[in-house]
Structure formats: C-alpha cells, structure tokens
C-alpha cells in the first residue's frame, strides 16, 4: 500500500502521539477518553471510541507512521482499505480537533 490510498488531508508518513491531557479509561468494555484540562463548554463531555477507534488510538504511540498502522490493521482485521482509510481520516480529524493527539514528526524516506 502506498500514499495514494490516503486522501490529501492525510500524510502517510506522519507520526502522531497521544496528548497527555487525555486519559484513556476502560469502562464496562467501552474505551473512553477523558479530557483532564477541560473547558467550561466541555465540562460534561467524554469521548467514546468504538472498537476500530480504540485500536487506532492504542497504536498512536509517537513512533509508528500512519502507513505502518494501516498496514498492521489490514493484516490483523478483515477490513477493506477504503473503509479503513475513511474511518481513519474521520477519527484523525476528530482527535486533532479536540487536541487529543499531536503530530510529532514526519518520517523521512519511503512510506510504503
């Protein structure tokens, strides 16, 4: 798989890390992100990840490129790359919008 599977908004070589202002909780089998420096507007909010979202979140370790994560997913799960990229793009945008993750680097060299 190569960069072409990602849309323009996603850089396959990008590396993301979890932001320390979010705590991951497992509550009754649900993966929840709790913001610990919340604003008044989000005082009552928590963020619930589905199974795909939780697995993606767990792989955002500040070392793996998006491309690596996608490749690992395709091996581990029976899922089409199109659906996977659609989910990842949505999730990545959502996580970035609430500052739950931050881009730490863009890997050099070939991505796929």
């Amino acid at each position, binding site marked *: 798989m190569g960069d072409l599977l990602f849309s323009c908004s996603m850089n396959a070589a990008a590396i993301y890390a979890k932001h320390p202002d979010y*705590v*991951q*909780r*497992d*509550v*009754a089998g*649900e993966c*929840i*992100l*709790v913001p*610990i*420096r*919340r*604003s*008044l507007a*989000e*005082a*009552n*909010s*928590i*963020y*619930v*990840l*589905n199974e*795909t*979202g939780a697995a*993606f979140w767990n792989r955002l370790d500040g070392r793996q490129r998006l491309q690596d994560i996608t490749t690992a997913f395709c091996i581990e799960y029976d899922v089409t790359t199109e659906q996977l990229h659609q*989910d*990842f793009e*949505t*999730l990545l945008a*959502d*996580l970035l919008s*609430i500052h739950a993750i931050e881009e730490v680097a863009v890997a050099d060299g070939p991505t796929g």
Partner: protein
Amino acid sequence: MPMVRRDRLHHLPERFPVFCQWEITCRCNLHCVMCYTDCFNRPDFIREELTTHDILRIMNEMADAGTLELCLTGGEPMIRPDFFHIYEHAIRRGFLVTVFTNGTLISEAAADRFAALRPHRIEISLHGLTRETFERITQGPGSHHRCLDGIRLLLDRQIPLTLKCTAMTLNQHEILAIKRYVTSLGMVGYKLGEDLRHELDGGAGPFQYALSNQTLVVLNRQDDDLWEESCHQDQTEPPPCRSGMQRFHIDAYGMLQLCSGNRHQGYDLRQGSFEEGFYQHLPSFACRRKTSAMKSLLHPTMNHA
C-alpha cells in the same frame, strides 16, 4: 463513527460501579448546626480516618474496576492537608471529579490548582445570603466572606459551579434571595435541599431546624421553579432505590456502603479489595427501599449533568 462525544454512557451493565460518593473526612473548619458529620469532627475520630496511601490505593482499584464519576465530600474535603494530592491523582486517573465544599478554604492558589486540572463540577453550600444568617448556621466567624470569595475565585476561572442550600428555620427568609443571587451569577447551578438527617452518632439535633410541610409549601409557591419541582415530587412515587447497583458510598474510615444515608452495613476496604467489596458484599446489604419485587423494574440510568 469511530469516536463520539457524549455526556453519559449507554449500555452499562445493570450492576457496575460507575458512581462513587466518597466522604474523605468528617473534619471541618465549620460547625453547621444541621450537619450530620460534625459529631465525628473530633481528634479521636479524625485519627481513624483513611491515610493518603489508603485513599490512593482504593482509588486505583476503583479506576481499574471502571468507576467513572467520583464525588469527594466531607466534612470539608479541602481541609485535609493532602486534599490536592488526592484530587489531582483522581483527575489524572481519569475520574470525572465533583467536589462538595463549604467554599471557605478556596484561596487563589487553590482556585489555580482547580483551574489547572479542572473538576467535573464544584458544589458549594450557601445556606444564607447575609452574613448574619450564614454564620448563624455555620457558627464560623468570617466564613460568609470567605465563602463568597471562594465562589468569585472559581467563577473568575470559569470552573463549573453549583450553589446549594438546605431550607431550614434559620434561613427560610433568605431562600428565594439565595436563588435570585445564584441566577444573577449566570452559568451556575442551583439546588435546594429540604431533607435533614440524623447525625452519624444517631443524634436528632438537626431536626430542630426542620421546616414544616406547610411552611415548605408556602415557600415553594413563591417561585415557579421551586413550585414545579415540589409538585413533581408530590405527584410521583419515589423511584426504587438503586444504591449499590451503579452507585456506592465510602466513608472516612474506608467502609464501602450502599449510600450516604444507609450505613447500617459496610465492607472494610482497608481489609479487602474494592472488587470483592462491590461484587461479593454490597449486593447483600439491606435497604428498606430495595426489594426483590422491585428488581425487575430497575433500569440503569446515568446522568453526568
């Protein structure tokens, strides 16, 4: 959707330890006349309270068990020298933390720490609007000024806040003024309590300040919100008790109990694990409002608001 924003969890098991109210101390700098814990606000009892180490260990076990909402109360929780150590540990473990406080110990530095790691909500008892009424209830000279200062410091930092008072003979003439004051503050919640309870040692002292039903009706009729709420309460059967299903209480000595109002039985968390206490012992604790006939009617609900 891979991720959704919610203000509550759905599909929780019927029995799951979601919400904990934890009375981390009975110590308090005030001596409110209707307080049910002040009888244990004595050195001999305070010496028996949970240590920092015990509290953090139990808290970690609760986090591992999936507890999400944690209410730290007292006594006055902020009077513990280790309060912020406990509070910040709870926030960093991902609990949604609510703090019940009298507000008088909220300094600039304390407000800054709340602002740095924000609570789900802080609830402050405001039992009187004038100094005279407030301090007749709290029996603490200067407490009125310090409480209002604490409220201002939290508002300045946009910390979610609820102000609440208990209707009594001593403050009945200021209840509506307190509500108007809270409304004037903007995004601040308001709660009016009408129930007094026995002291923890069995004393009935608080009931001498109770309002008659007739007085409460007259009071509630003067405000649309209060009247609507009281009519709703009159017209509906009290819901079946769900204590011990998704809610539970821990006292200052580490006893796991069904709720703050039912301490007849407890499981000693200093001696055993939280998991064992919640799943093996709590279900067998008695509650007069929880019967087997009601069990089929129970439906899990949780509301963070």
